[in-house]
C-alpha cells in the first residue's frame, strides 16, 4: 500500500466522460483392522459422508425451519402457547441463549429450573433445542475492565476456567437432550466486548470440552456480520473455523442484499473445491429491523443456496407463509424482471412458483409458443384457423412479500439449481461495469454523478452524514465535523463509499486499485486538513497513511494505492474517506477508482500538485 499525490484532475475528468460515453454506446449491445472394525469404519465413513453431503447434492430439500425464542423467560402457559404456534407453523427446532447469569447466578451455584422446563416443553412437541452459550455472567467480568453494568453480559469472563466450569456443567446437564451448541451470539463489537483472542479462547475451549463430554455434539461457529463473505472466508480458513461443525450466518435486513453474498458464499467460499466436503451452513438469525416478509424471503434463499437450517425471529415465523412451502421441493429459479426473483418447486399437486421483488412490480409470463404453419398443415388443418390470435398474458403483481403463483406459464424460463454470482448481478437490471477500467463519483456531472461508486445511499451510516454543497463553482461532498462534546453524535467526518458489485466484489485482494480523491486545498493553511482511507481488506478494516492536504483554495488531487482490498459490502460499505484529525471540513469534488493492470508500472508517488480551480 502506498500513498501518493498527483494533479491530473482534468485528464481524469476527460477519462470519466469517455468512460461514461463509451459505456452508454455499449449498452445499446497402521495394523490391519479386524473385520468388525473395518465394518464400523465403513459405516462411520458412510454416516459422515451423508452428514457432510453438500446441500446442492441434496437439491430440493427444505431447510429445517427454526425459531429464536427465549423460552426460559416465559411462563408455562406463555411457553406452551408459543410452542404450539411455532409447531403449527412447521418449526422443528428452537435456538435460545443459555444465559450464564440465570444458570449460574452466583459462582458455583447452578439453577436449571427454567431452562429444564423450556427444553422439556419443546421436546414434548418434537422440537429440538439449540443452546447458545453466553451471555457472560456479570460476576465473571473482570472489575478492572470498568465495563458498565448493563454491558457486562456482552463482555468476556476474566478467566477461561470460569467459562469452562459453566460450559461443562451445562453440557453434562443437557447432553441427553441437547446436542447443538453455539458459542456466544455474534462475535462482533455490538455483542462481544473483548479481543479476538478472547473469543477464540472461548470458542476453542468450549469446542474441546463439549466434544469430550458429548461426541455427538454439533458445534456452531457464528459469523460476526450479516452474510459477510469476506469475514466468513477468513474465519472458515482459520483453525477455529475448521474445528467447527457448522458455520452460522445471519441475514441482512434488506432481502436485496442477501442473494449475492449467498451465491458467492455457497459457490465460491464454502463450495470451492478446496473446501470439500462442504461445511454445513445454518442461518442463525436476522439483522435487527428485518421484517417478517424479509425473513420469509431469507428462508427461501437459504433453501435455494443449500443451508441446512434456518432460524428466524419467532415473531417472523407464522403458518401463513410457512404452510404453502410444506411438501415442496426446490427445482430452479428465474428473474422475471429487474430486482425480482421467481423460484420453482415441485409439489404434490404439481409445479409451483414463488415470486417477489424489492418494489411493487407487475410481471407478465412469456407468450406461449404458437404452433407452426407446417405443423398445422401436417395435422390437416387450415393454417389460418390453427394459429390463434395472440392475446397478451395477464400480468401478476408481486412485491416485497412473496407470492405463490401458478408455475405452468413460467416454467420455460426456469433455470435449474441456484443462481451464480453472474446470474445475481445480471438480475439487478443495472449496468454491468465489470470490464470498465474505472468507476467514479463526480458531483459535477449532471448525468451519472455516481458511476459505479455510491455515496448517497450511505449517508445514514454512523459518522457519514455529509452534505452536497457548491464550492468554488464545483459540486462537492462536504464532511460535517464538530469537536463540541455535546454535538458528538452529529459529528460526521466520514464519506462512505460502496463500489458497484459488478465492478469489484470479493476477490481476496487479487485486484490492485488506485483511488484518486479530488478535493479543495486547506484554506486554514498547512497541516490543518488531512485525510486517509479506511477500507475493507483481506485482513479486515484498515487505514491508509495519513495525507495532509496542501494549503490554499486550489483543487488538489491525491492518489492512494490499495493492493489488498476485499470489498464485500461489509456493514453496507467498502471504504470511507476519513478527515477526523483536521481542524476544518473537507470538500471532495470527485473520487475515482481505477484497476491497475499489472503490465503497467505504477506511477511513482509525486508531491501534491495543485490544479487550476473551476
Amino acid at each position, binding site marked *: 500500500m502506498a500513498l501518493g499525490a498527483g494533479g491530473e484532475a482534468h485528464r481524469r475528468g476527460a477519462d470519466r466522460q469517455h468512460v461514461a460515453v463509451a459505456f452508454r454506446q455499449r449498452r445499446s449491445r497402521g495394523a490391519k483392522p479386524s473385520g468388525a472394525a473395518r465394518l464400523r469404519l465403513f459405516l462411520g465413513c458412510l454416516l459422515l459422508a451423508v452428514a457432510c453431503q453438500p446441500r446442492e447434492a441434496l437439491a430440493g430439500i427444505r431447510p429445517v425451519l427454526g425459531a429464536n425464542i427465549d423460552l426460559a423467560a416465559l411462563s408455562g402457559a406463555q411457553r406452551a402457547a408459543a410452542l404450539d404456534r411455532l409447531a403449527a407453523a412447521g418449526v422443528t427446532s428452537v435456538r435460545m441463549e443459555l444465559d450464564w447469569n440465570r444458570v449460574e447466578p452466583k459462582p458455583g451455584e447452578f439453577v436449571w429450573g427454567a431452562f429444564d422446563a423450556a427444553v422439556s416443553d419443546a421436546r414434548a412437541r418434537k422440537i429440538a433445542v439449540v443452546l447458545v452459550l453466553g451471555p457472560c455472567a456479570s460476576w465473571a467480568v473482570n472489575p478492572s475492565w470498568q465495563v458498565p453494568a448493563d454491558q457486562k453480559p456482552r463482555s468476556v469472563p476474566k478467566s477461561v476456567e470460569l467459562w469452562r466450569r459453566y460450559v461443562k456443567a451445562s453440557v453434562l446437564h443437557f447432553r441427553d437432550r441437547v446436542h447443538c451448541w453455539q458459542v456466544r451470539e455474534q462475535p462482533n*463489537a455490538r455483542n462481544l466486548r473483548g479481543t479476538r483472542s478472547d473469543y477464540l479462547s472461548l470458542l476453542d475451549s468450549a469446542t474441546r470440552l463439549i466434544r469430550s463430554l458429548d461426541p455427538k455434539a454439533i458445534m456452531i461457529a457464528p459469523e*460476526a456480520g450479516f452474510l459477510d463473505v469476506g469475514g466468513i472466508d477468513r*474465519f472458515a*480458513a482459520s483453525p477455529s473455523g475448521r474445528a467447527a461443525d457448522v458455520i452460522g450466518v445471519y441475514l441482512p435486513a434488506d432481502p436485496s442484499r442477501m442473494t449475492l453474498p449467498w451465491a458467492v458464499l455457497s459457490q465460491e467460499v464454502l463450495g470451492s473445491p478446496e473446501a470439500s466436503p462442504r461445511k454445513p451452513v445454518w442461518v442463525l438469525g436476522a439483522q435487527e429491523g428485518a421484517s417478517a416478509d424479509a425473513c420469509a424471503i431469507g428462508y427461501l434463499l437459504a433453501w435455494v443456496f443449500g443451508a441446512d437450517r434456518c432460524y428466524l425471529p419467532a415473531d417472523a415465523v407464522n403458518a401463513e407463509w410457512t404452510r404453502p412451502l410444506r411438501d415442496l421441493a426446490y427445482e430452479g429459479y428465474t428473474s422475471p424482471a429487474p430486482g425480482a426473483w421467481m423460484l420453482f418447486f415441485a409439489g404434490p399437486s404439481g409445479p409451483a412458483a414463488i415470486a417477489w421483488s424489492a418494489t411493487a412490480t407487475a410481471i407478465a409470463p412469456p407468450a406461449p409458443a404458437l404452433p407452426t404453419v407446417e405443423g398445422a398443415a401436417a395435422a390437416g388443418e387450415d393454417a389460418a384457423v390453427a394459429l390463434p390470435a395472440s392475446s397478451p398474458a395477464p400480468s401478476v403483481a408481486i412485491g416485497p412479500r412473496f407470492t405463490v403463483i401458478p408455475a405452468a406459464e413460467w416454467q420455460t424460463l426456469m433455470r435449474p439449481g441456484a443462481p451464480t454470482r453472474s446470474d445475481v448481478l445480471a438480475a439487478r437490471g443495472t449496468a454491468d461495469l465489470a470490464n470498465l477500467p474505472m468507476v467514479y463519483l463526480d458531483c459535477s456531472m449532471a448525468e451519472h454523478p455516481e458511476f459505479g461508486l455510491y455515496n448517497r445511499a450511505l449517508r445514514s451510516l*454512523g459518522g457519514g452524514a455529509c452534505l452536497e454543497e457548491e464550492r468554488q463553482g464545483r459540486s462537492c461532498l462536504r464532511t460535517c465535523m464538530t469537536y463540541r462534546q455535546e454535538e458528538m453524535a452529529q459529528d460526521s467526518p466520514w464519506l462512505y463509499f460502496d463500489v458497484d458489485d459488478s465492478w469489484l466484489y470479493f476477490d481476496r485482494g487479487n485486484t490492485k486499485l488506485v483511488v484518486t480523491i479530488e478535493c479543495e486545498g486547506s484554506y486554514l493553511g498547512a497541516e490543518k486538513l488531512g485525510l486517509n482511507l479506511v477500507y475493507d481488506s483481506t485482513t479486515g478494516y484498515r487505514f491508509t497513511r495519513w495525507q495532509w492536504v496542501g494549503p490554499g483554495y486550489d483543487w488538489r488531487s491525491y492518489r492512494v494505492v490499495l493492493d489488498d482490498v476485499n470489498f464485500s459490502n461489509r456493514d453496507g460499505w467498502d471504504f470511507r474517506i476519513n478527515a477526523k*484529525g483536521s481542524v476544518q471540513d473537507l470538500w471532495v469534488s470527485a473520487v475515482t477508482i481505477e484497476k491497475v493492470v499489472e503490465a503497467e508500472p505504477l506511477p511513482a508517488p509525486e508531491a501534491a500538485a495543485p490544479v487550476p480551480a473551476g
Partner: protein
Amino acid sequence: MSGKWWVLVVIVLLGTMIALATPPASAAEYTNVAGLQPWSAESDYMSLPGYLRWMTFKEQGIWLSVPEAKRIVAEQIANM
C-alpha cells in the same frame, strides 16, 4: 525408526506453518488502529485506545471502557 521420526517432525512443522499462515479469524473485529501514530492528526491527537473508543462510538453507538480499548489495541499491536 529414525525415518518415521523425520516424517513426524516434517508433518508437525508443516502443520504449524499452515496454522501460522492462516489468516486470522474475523471474530470480535474492531478497525485496526495499530499502525496509526498516537497523539497525531491521524489519531485525532488521541491515544490509540482513545481513538478506538471514539471510532467504536461513531460506528456502533457503544462506548468501550478505557481498559477494554487498551486490551484490544494491545492485541492489535502484538499481531502487527
